[in-house]
């Protein structure tokens, strides 16, 4: 994990969650900007997961390696699934579904950071 990247990821996830809620409040289905934003955020998450995985398998000692790796997988997978589910029925509620996915991902990243600092 890299502290600066964690901050960027958390800010991006928060922005995505807010945008999702805004489209719901404005009574609009998820638009192309939602899927683009999700793409950017997921790309950031993949980079973060790759760096963390390389460092874990490279020998960084953590108190709970298995938990850490599960959170790592969760942090990457939740948003694509949530976005798929959100756009399958194009109503105003799609944005809120994306927001739920973004918040859940943010919690996973937060826990990852906690486990990482506990090990470092």
């Amino acid at each position, binding site marked *: 994990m890299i502290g600066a990247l964690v901050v960027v990821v958390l800010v991006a996830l928060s922005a995505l969650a807010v945008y999702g809620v805004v489209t719901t409040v404005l009574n609009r289905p998820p638009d192309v900007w939602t899927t683009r934003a999700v793409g950017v955020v997921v790309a950031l998450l993949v980079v973060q997961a790759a760096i963390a995985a390389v460092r874990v398998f490279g020998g960084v000692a953590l108190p*709970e390696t*298995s*938990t850490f790796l*599960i959170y790592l997988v*969760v942090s990457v997978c*939740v948003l694509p*699934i*949530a976005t798929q*589910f*959100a756009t399958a*029925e194009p*109503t105003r*509620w*799609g944005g*809120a*579904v994306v927001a*739920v*996915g973004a918040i*859940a991902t943010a919690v996973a990243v937060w826990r990852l950071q906690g486990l990482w600092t506990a090990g470092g």
Partner: protein
Amino acid sequence: MAEPARATASGPGRVLIAVYGVFALSATARAGVQIATRFDEAPLAYLLSALAGVVYVLATIGLAGRGAGARRLAWGAVVFELVGVLVVGTLTVFDTGDFPDDTVWSIYGRGYGFVPLVLPLVGLWWLRHTRPR
């Protein structure tokens, strides 16, 4: 003439299913790790975590599915979930001795922002709201 049931997996129901899905994933994954790595420390709490995870999975499937069977499954799972969070929440408030480790329902789900307490109430309201009439 009776109006048919509205799909529980439509409109705001999709947000509810998303939240249930997140809890299904996190509760089962957490219980899986606990049972696999340190079951001896708190077997009751970890089995309870696993049970809660299964209930969230069943609720998610029931709400996302169509038809009377899925609706019955959702009712059963959400009612069980409400009873579970109330019983475990009350037990943990008055006596923490039997629960040495936190579960998703401990102290009415405080570790999860009390979402586990609110979620079944919203679930019951939604099932009632979409029922056939």
